[in-house]
């Protein structure tokens, strides 16, 4: 309860709510795309550096590797579950269901950061390697969704549906070398080799400003989520909207069991649970436009950005922290 209130009164969440409210009231307030993209790169550099500097403090143990592998497996597995649920409970066709499922297997770095912020407000700090987990969980879900669809489509491919080599190359680069993977892993590595001392000169920029920049970014996220919700919710059936609310909790439970099995400390568990529960809204939509162009963005984006993201940021994070305390306790 206390956690929930502390989360809700964080300026980060308040700015998100401000953006959400303004967009629902149809205000034309926007943050220019180029500026928001610049801030996103800043945020990923800052997250990566911080994680790398933390990682440099401890040796790479087998426990760390286990968590990395667990994250990858979760990212591969969640889409299979999400796809099955969507097909069983909604009228979405296979392509739409697979595309949406990919979003839930992948992660939202802003949700991750909001959880980190909530933990810090409670006076706890998670390990640096969770940033690596976040980066590694981006891509597997996309691969998983594409495997699901190619399994369904057993008829021999004609020229139209078979992907040209160049198109496949573009997709592979988009999945494995997209901006967030490159910057997050790159900055993590830089933080790791430069260490606390080596990054002292850049700390005022990347550490001191982090929370403030996040406020600005979340204002924009709120504006985007509100607009997406206003435009898109009518296109989603009741079952699909409900999915956007319970799926993160289902994912969270699975991640909680794994965190318990791995004996993760509470703060780390909270972040692994949050990552698993979060849904992508930048990297996966881009990959889906390349790989599954017939899937409708108005479905998967309204779900992940309009429903699941606000749910996670407002209600989910306190819940996931509670779950983590329970399994780690």
């Amino acid at each position, binding site marked *: 309860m206390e956690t929930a209130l502390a989360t809700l009164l964080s300026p980060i969440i308040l700015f998100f709510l401000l953006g959400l409210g303004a967009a629902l009231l149809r205000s034309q307030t*926007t943050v*220019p795309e180029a500026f928001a993209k610049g801030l996103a790169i800043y945020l990923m550099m800052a997250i990566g550096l911080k994680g790398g500097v933390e990682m440099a403090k401890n040796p790479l143990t087998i426990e760390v590797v286990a968590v990395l592998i667990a994250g990858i497996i979760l990212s591969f597995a969640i889409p299979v579950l999400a796809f099955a649920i969507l097909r069983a409970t909604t009228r979405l066709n296979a392509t739409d269901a697979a595309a949406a499922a990919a979003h839930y297997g992948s992660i939202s770095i802003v949700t991750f950061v909001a959880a980190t912020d909530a933990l810090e407000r409670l006076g706890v700090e998670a390990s640096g390697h969770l940033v690596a987990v976040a980066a590694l969980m981006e891509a597997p879900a996309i691969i998983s969704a594409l495997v699901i669809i190619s399994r369904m489509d057993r008829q021999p491919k004609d020229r139209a549906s078979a992907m040209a080599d160049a198109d496949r190359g573009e997709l592979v680069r988009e999945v494995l070398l997209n901006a967030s993977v490159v910057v997050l892993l790159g900055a993590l590595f830089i933080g790791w080799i430069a260490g606390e001392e080596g990054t002292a000169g850049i700390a005022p920029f990347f550490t001191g400003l982090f929370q403030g920049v996040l406020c600005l970014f979340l204002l924009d996220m709120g504006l985007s989520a509100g607009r*997406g919700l206003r435009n898109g919710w009518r296109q989603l059936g009741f079952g699909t909207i409900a999915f956007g609310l319970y799926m993160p909790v289902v994912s969270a439970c699975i991640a909680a069991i794994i965190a318990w099995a791995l004996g993760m400390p509470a703060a780390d568990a909270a972040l692994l649970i949050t990552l698993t529960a979060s849904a992508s*809204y930048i990297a996966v939509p881009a990959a889906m436009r390349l790989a599954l*162009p*017939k899937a409708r963005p108005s479905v998967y*984006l309204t779900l992940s950005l309009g429903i699941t993201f606000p749910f996670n940021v407002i209600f989910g994070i306190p819940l996931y922290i509670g779950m983590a305390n329970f399994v780690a306790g």
Partner: protein
Amino acid sequence: MAETYAMKRIELIVERMAARRAGRVLQESGVTGYTVLPALEGYGNGQTWRRDADISGSSDMVAIVCVTSAEAASAALDNLAQLLAEQIGIVTVNDVQVLRPERF
């Protein structure tokens, strides 16, 4: 007056994520160049999108302008038909006059 020559102008309005694929289709069709212009917002199918209001950028469109010979334009249309069956977009062609036909 400067002498002018007949060419075709293809304009393809297509999702941003499909622009590279469309560019490859144009290249394979034998055009010698094209230029991609950004779009700010749009309307279609009863829905509007707006670049600055959607952080995911998943509805962003671009306009691809390509000036080319009649043969290459015809090949490009054939090849684009297939792309447009899969990705969101429209294509138009019209007659234009150019200077320096050897450039196309």
